[in-house]
């Protein structure tokens, strides 16, 4: 019983901290601090995946997002940084209309979520192992898998060509 309460408190606090980190991403004037807050938000989301019994996806999220995408983003920040950036305002003139419309959007979605009767069954908690995911990727979903491989190669070559110094 106490273990369940402890688990609930931990998951809710992870959700709250991820939201605070996401707010830090959009509000910090220094872009480097914003990138670090994004790392925090991504790790928080990975912990949420573990709580939802999707361990493989959690580990893949940390490996790909935190290990690779954030490294790339921070490299780009370091290569394009101008000293003295802190004094320039980092929000354009659309902040108030954006805030109001997004508040209405979230209010609408929130009330929809709380009112709908979701057709949920009892939660499946058997672990989805890498074996099952691999069979699905090479069995039923082989066509999107091959298309994504082609997209990855195209993205790789394209990024190298665009960013090349010549």
């Amino acid at each position, binding site marked *: *019983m*106490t*273990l369940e309460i402890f688990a609930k408190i931990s998951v809710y606090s992870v959700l709250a901290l991820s939201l605070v980190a996401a707010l830090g991403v959009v509000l910090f004037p220094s872009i*480097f*601090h914003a990138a*670090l807050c994004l*790392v925090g938000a991504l790790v928080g989301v990975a912990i949420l995946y573990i709580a939802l019994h999707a*361990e*493989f996806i959690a*580990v*893949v999220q*940390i*490996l790909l997002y*935190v*290990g*690779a995408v*954030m*490294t790339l983003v*921070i*490299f780009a920040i*370091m290569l394009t940084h101008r000293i003295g950036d802190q004094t320039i305002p980092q929000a354009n003139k659309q902040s108030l209309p954006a805030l109001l419309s997004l508040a209405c959007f979230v209010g609408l979605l929130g009330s929809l979520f709380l009112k709908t009767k979701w057709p949920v069954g009892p939660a499946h908690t058997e*672990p989805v*192992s*890498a*074996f099952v995911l691999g069979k699905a990727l090479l069995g039923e979903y082989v066509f999107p898998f091959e298309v994504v491989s082609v997209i990855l190669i195209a993205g790789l070559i394209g990024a190298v060509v665009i960013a090349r110094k010549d």
Partner: protein
Amino acid sequence: MDQMFVNLKKALLDSLAPFLPMEGVAFVSVVVSISAIAVFGPFTMMYLTWFERKLVGRIQNRIGPNRVGIFGLLQPIADGIKMLTKEDIVPTGADRVVHFLAPVVVVIPALLVFSVIPFGRNMVAVDLNVGLIFFIAVSATTTIAIFMGSWASRNKFSLLGGMRTVAQLVSYEVPMILSLVPAVLAAGSLSTVDIVEAQGGWNGLKWFVFTPWGLVAFFLFYLCGVAECNRTPFDIPEAESEIVAGFHTEYSGMKFALWYMAEFMNVFTVSALTATLYLGGYQGPLLPSWAWFMIKTYALVFVMMWFRGTLPRLRVDQLMGLAWKFLLPLALINILVTSAWYFIPGLALRLAVSIAILGASFWGLVTLNRPFVPEKRIYEFAE
């Protein structure tokens, strides 16, 4: 004898069981595992520094530290006291919060990966069924901490050192992950305990390193692990003669001690994981399982320190060239050979085909990667 530590923990839990509710026992079990790792990790790191200084001293024809205690065994404690009492200097204009957090963030992955290493039979802290990817994912977050450290110091050398370090770490991650795949293919599971159990045949001697693909994958993984730990010959990030001290130039006292601790814990965990994946982990004929594990891991740590005492360091373009042009194609061909091993019938045919493919590709890659030596210029003086 083999299950000594497991029985100790069970006795402790049984003695506490009458006093606590059921969740309390589970909680105490977790706390005992965590404290064992938290005590073992830094303690190992301290005595690894002693081992390194003695060994590198002997390679360089001098005795290492021998003043503090017999054979210098209390030297790490003296070092620890020195580092705790040093002044903590933060450069003006440095980003104080990030400067403070960077050494903390680098120790977290170094300690977390201790939880998926099987120290002996039934002696793994958490038996995750995605344990191997957990190890790789958590080691990959070290790059963020290095960026934080190099950025927050507000020093051009730190920034350059940090970017070179991250480029090296990210380049060597790719052949490292690809050279793990043969062990996963052979064992059929991503859990470290299952991979060790799959090497149990022949009375505990059927290690993966005794197969052609296993040998190549062992060398690949070990070399990439040495590069991931920023050890010589891949230690451009910390080369004192090159860029002062790289990304940890501006750190002194306890913060430097944390960077140093994270590096040595990485040395231990990479050696431990190599031993688990390819050298059979805790499997072995006569001794208890944890003794075999320690022997294998410390043998690999000894080899890493031997590299440090003997080899010069690679230049940065040679380092990158090695990862992308040599280790990566070899790792891919190795995966192919591993799968071929399991589909070709007959031992002699299997051995012949794998050794032929691996030998030909190794020779081909070495030939293709020969450094370009321009022809010598001949100077003629005008007369």
